[in-house]
């Protein structure tokens, strides 16, 4: 689709708002519908859209496969790490009460950090699935 000007230009316009909207959904998750999963899917959709229009190669230049393989387990590591932090502070696993000066802020921080982990894993898994399908060659 290298020659299709309309598609390429519209995509270019859409990418930045898509990523911005992903961030909005991510940080709005504390107060209303949203959160890491949805935001991760939206952000991944931006990369996948870019890949659909410009091809797999340019998409992998933005998000290389090696980065994905770090981000997928990395997101889970953040999640588990927050849970263990709660344990080290004397609570049960995934108890965020003592992450900040009082329990309300502690819970807010805990959910905030955990959602970042969710975002990273969902974002990178979605792209990895797309790469796996798009990179398949007939043997």
């Amino acid at each position, binding site marked *: 689709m290298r020659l299709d000007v309309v598609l390429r230009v519209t995509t270019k316009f859409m990418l930045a708002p898509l990523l911005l909207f992903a961030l909005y959904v991510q940080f709005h998750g504390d107060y209303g519908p949203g959160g890491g999963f949805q935001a991760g899917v939206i952000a991944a959709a931006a990369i996948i859209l870019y890949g659909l229009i410009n091809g797999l190669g340019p998409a992998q230049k933005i998000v290389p496969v090696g980065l994905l*393989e*770090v981000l*997928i*387990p*990395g997101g*889970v*590591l953040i999640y*588990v790490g927050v849970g*263990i932090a*709660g*344990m080290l502070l*004397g*609570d*049960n*696993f*995934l*108890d*965020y*009460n003592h992450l900040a000066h009082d329990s309300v802020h502690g819970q807010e921080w805990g959910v905030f950090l955990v959602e970042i982990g969710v975002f990273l894993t969902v974002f990178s898994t979605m792209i990895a699935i797309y790469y796996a399908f798009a990179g398949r060659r007939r043997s």
Partner: protein
Amino acid sequence: MITHHLPVLLILAPLLGAILAALSRNGFAAWLIALVASALTAAIAVALLWRVQAEGVISYRLGGWAPELGIEYRVDAVNALIVLLVGVVALVTMIFARRSVLAEIIPERVAWFYTMMLLCIAGLLGMAVTGDAFNAFVFLEISSLSTYTLIALGRDRRALVAAYQYLIVGTIGATFYVIGVGLIYLVTGTLNLGLIVERLGAIESSRALIVAEAFIVAGIGLKLALFPLHAWLPNAYAYAPSSASVLLASTATKVAVYLLARFLFTVFGGDVGPGGIPIGAILIVLSVAAMFLASAAAVFQNDVKRILAFSSVGQIGYITLGLALVNPTGLTGGLLHLFNHALMKGAAFMAIGAIVLRAGTAKLDELSGIGRVMPWTVAALTVAGLGLIGVPGTSGFVSKYYLILGALEAGHGWLAILIVASSFIAVLYVGRFVEVMWFREPAQAARESREAPLEMLLPMWVLAGATIWFGLDAEGPAALARAAANALLKVAP
């Protein structure tokens, strides 16, 4: 302080191990991480069992939330036994796995293989320790998804088909389970198993519970390969990488049996379910069918892995028969057979893994005379085979003895006869590979192979040795199984 966190540490050790193995991206480092993680898991499992025996039921609240709101991990005599089994098997499998994985898995995928093994272990342990019906579903999915990947990593192209087949069937099973859990939630308003039991008495119409029981028994039945729902198992075990077969054959179906027992006895109340469904009688029929038909199918297989896989379906029949008898002795027999069968099947699949490593094939007609060049390996396979038959002096005899006593206690003398009769079919399939491997002239594959390396023989003989040990001195596992059976039936010990 650390003992307080034991139930969750049990899950965290393999889960963190899986993350680190994935991040390491190096085959040897991943193996080392997997070994350490599973050693820690086994140690935690032993500590947990110890604590349960000293203090009784352990409850752990995730995130500090009360059981009504959050997830509770609950460990009693029943799941302490399962957790011990999974922990120990995980450790010996990891010791065994290194050589076998080097030969069977593409180098770039070795780290992913160990990641999936550890995730599978984490999922199985999670299913065992959680006291929350929906959380059990989540862990069921974790273990299932990693199992599909493990099977698909097999060298044979048919592994992909086997994995896909299991993916479809396993997903249906998990969906049925979660539909059943949803119905229970509808009538009780809680997902915590303990609270469900408390609130069951107040339910006026049992219709939702009848449907829930049907869905849950069928759903878990698919996962544990209950007789007519077992079609996915032989291919999955036969084409998965050898070390994955060891782990799956000795733990995956066992944890599903545990979940079934938990629902049958604590939620649905034993052999007659809500609305008068004769679930005990249905299970007895299916178990007997498995004992005869699946064992008979094993006789006609050529691939040794498939013989063992069909034998697994048959042996699961004995375990579910123990559950269906609904008396302390029979249930003790069922749980004891669950434990013993896991150990002997682990040893048998390790032996086959070693034979595949050396001879490059698991086809029986190409393996004639292999016992003469790999005596220790085939001896371990033979010991496991004797255990499957239930020869006195092996642990299989002890558990079948309890089952027969349980059948007599329940007043089903004919069942006791069927248990003995079906064991003769095991003589046929075990006898077949024993005869070919020991007594025939060595074939091409046998002449070119040699004894398996020590690091594979050692874990293999730990399990084969346990099969003999628990056949001669059964008091240890029998006491654990009896405590578990009493906890399920709520009989004072």
